């Protein structure tokens, strides 16, 4: 791929992205859903003793449970819309290198999603910082300041998690070429692992499910307390999510490259 072609692809995709209303609304929705849910969880939490064992970061970032669904919709639609409108034919006629097209889309999606994720996470962290000390999360209960290095690491983990989920969704949509099937697939992968882990009584299998599922692994990246009891360390957790995103993009790229008819998507 020449530098020019890559730049042109990026520019074209960026123009598409910024000139339709959908993505902006969705990214605003990420913030609008994540922050209030986190604030509500902060208000409901109560730490009555030094042994209450509640992770303030996990409480603050409860909204990520919902916010990631909006991120997933944004990721799926970034490519699903092309298939459902038939635009994909035009795009690939103008840009015959399919992988350039896919990676330009991924690049154009990453920036705005990362910004929205950082805003959502920062808002959640700020809400936690304001609300939690009034609910027993005080130095007396061994919660130093909520601004320790671990808290910043947890916030970074939450923001990167949301961004990786967008890329996972983009890859899934490229692979199945159908928005509806892709969103079902992505949300199934996200939500079914922790559900299965919770109801399975076999402890080793349950722990493995928590290690390989992107949502439980991503939650490990957002933790600040009880790290030694987690199935994964925070960075390992983020690594698992990154592997999921990379895997989805790889499968999407391979299918896109080797399938013959781009318009056969059921859309």
């Amino acid at each position: 791929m020449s530098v020019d072609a890559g730049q042109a692809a990026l520019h074209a995709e960026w123009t598409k992205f910024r000139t339709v209303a959908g993505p902006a609304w969705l990214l605003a929705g990420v913030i609008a859903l994540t922050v209030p849910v986190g604030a509500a969880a902060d208000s409901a939490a109560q730490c009555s003793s030094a042994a209450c064992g509640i992770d303030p970061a996990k409480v603050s970032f409860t909204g990520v449970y919902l916010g990631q669904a909006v991120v997933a919709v944004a990721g799926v639609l970034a490519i699903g819309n092309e298939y459902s409108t038939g635009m994909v034919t035009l795009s690939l006629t103008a840009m015959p290198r399919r992988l350039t097209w896919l990676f330009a889309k991924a690049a154009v999606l990453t920036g705005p999603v990362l910004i929205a994720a950082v805003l959502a996470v920062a808002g959640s962290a700020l809400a936690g910082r304001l609300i939690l000390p009034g609910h027993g999360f005080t130095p007396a209960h061994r919660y130093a300041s909520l601004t320790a290095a671990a808290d910043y690491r947890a916030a970074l983990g939450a923001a990167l998690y949301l961004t990786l989920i967008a890329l996972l969704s983009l890859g899934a949509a490229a692979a199945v070429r159908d928005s509806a099937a892709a969103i079902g697939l992505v949300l199934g992968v996200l939500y079914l692992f922790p559900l299965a882990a919770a109801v399975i009584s076999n402890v080793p299998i349950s722990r493995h499910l928590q290690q390989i599922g992107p949502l439980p692994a991503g939650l490990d990246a957002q933790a600040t307390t009880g790290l030694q009891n987690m199935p994964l360390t925070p960075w390992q957790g983020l690594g698992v999510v990154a592997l999921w995103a990379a895997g989805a993009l790889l499968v999407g790229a391979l299918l896109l490259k080797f399938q013959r008819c781009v318009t056969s998507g059921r859309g």
Partner: protein
Amino acid sequence: MTVERESFWCLVHAEWTKLRTVPGWVLAVLVTIVAIPAFAFLAADVSGGCTQSSGGHATACPAPLTGPGGEPVSDAFYFAHQAVTGNGTITAQVTSLTGQVPAVPAGEVADGPGGQPWFKAGIIVKENTSQGSAYAAMMVTGAHGVRMQWDYVNDTPGLAGNVSAAAPRWLRLVRDGDTISGYDSADGTHWTLVGTAALPRLTSIVQAGLFAAAPSGGDSTTDTGVFRHVGLSWPATGWTGINVGGTGPNGVPLPGSLRQNAGTITVTGSGDISPAVGNTGSVDSLQRALTGTFFGLIPLIVVAAMFITAEYRRGLIRVSLTAAPRRGRLLAAKAVAIGAAGFAAGLVAATLALALGTPALRQSGIPLWPASLPTEARMVVGTGALLAVAAVLALAIGTIVRRSAPAIAAVIVVIFVPYLLALGPLQGANGEAPLWPLQITPAAALSVQQAIPEFSQVIAVYRPNAGFYPLAPWAGLAVECAWAAGALALAYYLLRRRDA
């Protein structure tokens, strides 16, 4: 042709034809039907839960102790008993009930008041002295007044208020054939019937006497009941004290004693006489066999939303509305078609899941709580209804937003996230996740799959991951129906108001 066009059922038939002629949609509904029974095996720990415990060392699964109804029970208490023949009456006055709770080691958190509200001592008539046999008992409790309990699962309140020397409680059990009636009295003169137990397993000779039981997490907690004016209508043969249950979970003999002194009998005991529910690993719920419902919901929701959004995308909606100009009827016909598909899929899938999952759960080593036929029927029909209503909700949301991905995401989120939040990440004042997400969202409908009743007389962990839901089965389904009805109403309003 005009007549046909006007008939609602022709419209339903047309929508049904649309549904069943799209291969991908049929495939997705089939995935729903297959996924639910497939995951019945996942939830069942076929490797044997108890052989995996205690740090990798294989421990044999203890044979589950079952009561007269086949349900897993706890039956350990101190029993001052004598054999009695035929009909008769036992009466006693209880003047005190005190607990002896071991001190909590420094640094550890006491597990609440340690089950003290359900400390119990009183009179009992029992089939024999072996664990799990039939019984009926009148007792005073730590904080729940006088109770009559029989055959482990039954509990009826009598006089309220705690027992003391100033406020003694008189208890009486009357045996008449297979029937035992319990009475209580504050003064020993005026008696009130508390309950009547039918115990068909009783033989002519039964054991009657006094008992004490102190439910708690540890073995060393005991409680002591002080009895006076103990009277038998049968010929008295003297009291024998034994520990029913013998040893605790660690093989240590359970504490307990019988002391007789000038008209006063003092009985000290530990353990509990109760259904074995709620504590991790003690009993399994048949609801586990339906865990796959979550897996089955996703393809069904995808199809249900696409059932309308695909029409918008392809412009087919204009053709559909030309053929059926009354838009509400079109929406209703679609709801009937997709709801019927969801109901049928849920019915088949849940029947298969229970048929396959029950033996798998039996193998897992954890005693399975027996579900009655009406309970199983409710679980199967309820799962069908849960899926049907979820499909209608997805159709309605799809009509409102007219786009597949946001509609599907919204419906999955309102059903899945509340359940996930009730499992853990939300923290309430007591350190446990609040259960309101499972009371006000469509996820409340999962309560229709509850297989074990909650027993108010047993302090235990009644949490969703153990198969206990905050709402009654049909009430939970009603919450989901309310959501679907509200979404349908909004969808109808928007469908009429907007251009197609």
